[in-house]
């Protein structure tokens, strides 16, 4: 199981990668593995300002459905629309092609609650 060092992780199993002034967000390798085969990723919050910890979408796997939580406060500026037709990419490449949204962090956005790879690895027992 992969937990890249350059990423930040939330306790809700999202990862965050800063790209210029945007934050790219997806779910972790651990999360995709726990969910099993992912069939839909549903995000209808593009353009909305969402607080850290609030729901920005849902991910539906064969066996279960799970909410997606904002790892940091900001505006959802883009949804990875390629997931609309091939949600299984989240299983195959959770940190790459399987990214889910891009967020413009609010000026007040706090990332101090996010974990580094080592702390997240410890959280999920890997």
């Amino acid at each position, binding site marked *: 199981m992969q937990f890249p060092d350059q990423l930040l992780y939330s306790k809700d199993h999202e990862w965050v990668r800063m790209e210029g002034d945007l934050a790219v967000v997806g779910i972790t390798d651990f999360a995709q593995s726990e969910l*099993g*085969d992912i*069939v*839909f990723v*549903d995000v209808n919050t593009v353009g909305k300002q969402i607080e850290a910890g609030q729901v920005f979408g*849902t991910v*539906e796997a*064969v*066996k279960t*459905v799970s909410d997606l939580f904002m790892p940091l406060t900001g505006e959802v500026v883009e949804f990875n629309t390629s997931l*609309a037709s091939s949600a*299984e990419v989240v*299983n195959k490449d959770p940190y790459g092609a399987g990214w889910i949204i891009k967020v413009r962090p609010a000026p007040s956005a706090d990332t101090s609650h996010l974990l580094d790879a080592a702390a997240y690895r410890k959280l999920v027992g890997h």
Partner: protein
Amino acid sequence: MKKTALHPRHLQLKARMVPFAGFEMPVSYSGITQEHMAVRQAAGIFDVSHMGEFFVEGPDALPFLEYVTTNYVAGLDVGQAQYSCMLREHGGIVDDLLVYCLGEDRYMMVVNAANIDKDFEHLREQSHRFNVNLLNASEVWSLMAVQGPKALEIVQKLTETDLSEIPYYHFDFVALNSVEEALISNTGYTGAGGFEIYVPQEVALHTWDILMEAGASAGLVPCGLGARDTLRLEKGYCLYGQDIDETTTPLEAGLSWIVKFQKDFLGKEALLQQKAQGITRKLVGLVLHEKAIPRTGYSVCDTEGKPIGRITSGAMSPVLGLPIALAYVSSDYSSPGSRLKVSVRERLAEAEVKKLPFL
């Protein structure tokens, strides 16, 4: 938590294990969708040893089974099996099951794992005025299913007996290599064709190993309960505890074809009464036209949003690429083509009644 004889293989194969009906069972090995497609296109092997096996023997075995099950047992030849169910007096389903005719006055019943104790108790209670012996051999027998278009070719490698001579819903006692006597049944819960193989627990691991070896070149993959569920749902087969239970009758569940009113059976009066009064709800197939999976318990509504039923099983169909479900709906809305809505979290998703099976 109980374990089947094949438990060590599931661990070796790094299956994801879950509690199911008191057993620790594999839900998937390589991924539910992949396992599902393997069964539709090649073959899969399932450990279903948690299922229960009862033996019914004695001079009254036939009249007893005619009384406690709804299908026509006297019509069975030795070597033939049938799908059936047992009812309470009020018409609710105690369990759905297979009845195997082993010989004159000798039958095997195969029941759902979660119902083994309940079913056996029910049979004991009903058996008083019959001269029968009941034996619960669930702990003695292991059961694996090899399902899919390549199943025949794979199992055939292990025996001299021509397995293509075993018709659908028939069985035979066959030697599989060194496994001297396996009951091989042309049945299954996937709709993909194949066999269910009953062997004594002591030889279960060996049987699994020789089947896996025989199937390696044909693409045989181990499959868990997850794929078993999506496979049966594509075919519209009921799952006890979800689509049917003691609060539902076979007439509501679309199982009238296994109910023979020409004979007497426990629960018949209640069903006749229900028939006379009219069936008010029916189990139907639904397809969703939106990207959401209808889950057990979700509410089904008419186009105005008025609740008229509920989802009992739902999944993404790997073959159709569409969300499918079974649901009880008010009979007025049960014809194929009816437009309905399913309440998915905070919205109403477009759905349509489809004729079963989906596939």
